[in-house]
């Protein structure tokens, strides 16, 4: 399909797992360690879907989502947040910032692919 995903998480293992799952499904994967790092990766890249953690150092996920939505090329790009059941307030903030959907941890690869399919045109 030739689609590119950007994964944003300060946890290396989480990036590896999400990245592995998406690569197995034919995605090209870009990675960012936090929101700021990811914005750098986003500039000039053709990215069709973004998957981001919320709790990160330097720039958190909510700020990152808001920033992405100010980029003309990514105003309508699907953004999935990685959340946990206990993070309802963050989830609400993420939605208000412009997130498309969410994925509840613990990370489950099959669920990731289902949700990606749900939001990816």
């Amino acid at each position: 399909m030739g689609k590119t995903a950007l994964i944003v998480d300060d946890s290396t293992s989480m990036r590896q797992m999400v990245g592995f799952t998406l690569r197995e499904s034919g995605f090209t994967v870009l990675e960012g360690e936090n929101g700021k790092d990811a914005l750098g990766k986003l500039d000039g890249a053709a990215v069709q879907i973004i998957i981001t953690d919320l709790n990160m150092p330097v720039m958190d996920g909510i700020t990152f989502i808001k920033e992405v939505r100010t980029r003309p090329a990514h105003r309508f790009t699907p953004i999935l947040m990685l959340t946990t059941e206990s993070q309802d307030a963050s989830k609400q903030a993420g939605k208000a910032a412009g997130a498309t959907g969410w994925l509840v941890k613990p990370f489950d690869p099959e669920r990731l692919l289902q949700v990606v399919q749900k939001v990816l045109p």
Partner: protein
Amino acid sequence: MKIDLAQFRAAFFEEAIEHQAALESGLLALEREPADREALDRVFRAAHSIKGGSGTFGLTDVARFTHVLEALLDRLRGGQLQVTPAVTEVLLRATDMLREVLAAARAGAPAPEGMEAMMAALAEAQQAGAPTGPAVAPAAGPVAGDRAASSWRVSLVPHVDLLQRGQDPLLLLRELEALGTLSEVVPDLTALPALAHLDPERCYLGWSLRLTGEVSEAQVREVFQFVEDTCDVTVAPVAAATQAAKDGRAGGRPGAASRPPRWSAGRLIAARATAARATAGRAAALKPARSAWPRRRWTS
């Protein structure tokens, strides 16, 4: 497709050990300076990360333990609980226990002795100083798992700002279509303004349709999981009269009994075309204005 993540298990444990160390150093910083917000955030993130990864690998003990730990840290972050010497003391002991819990999980051994007692101490610390509010019992509600009713009337009215969240009504229709047979798909164009007033970044269309198949209400509602606050959605079983006719069939072969009316496909295509036009308009809006170039090509 079955995706095997076992290869990342070792990486998880290595990272968990780093997080455990970060937890400990953060707590020591908090012990010295209880108002150190950054240290508290660092500590929370560390516990949160371990918890998140542990569930993925089915490390139940690690997940349970870090869940209680995280809950206490969350109350500290939220200000419902003060960072006192007593609290940091419990947290430091819990961090020691966490090291053992991780080691046991890595070795595939049973949970270390004292884990349950430590969890109880964490839970107790969490209650201390906080008025016990009403237990947040998840509303059990009707689970809506009734597969018997298998014909649903669905109405979907996206809010104008749906597209701003990266959502797309066409994807919702596509997902409904994957659940069963769509019929009586009628686009609602009443909110569609004249072209001159149309903002291509806004969604003006709504749909009503009938979905037939071996589908529970919960499955139908699942389609709208992400759009609960950007769409008005109603899902209702079709009227009993219509249902009665279908009840005659035994066994319930999906989709066999109620054939959609002949014109339904055409209506669906019309709905899709309308949505596609809206989407195309939106795509056009994203590109720099190029309206002049085809004319130039024709004339040159």
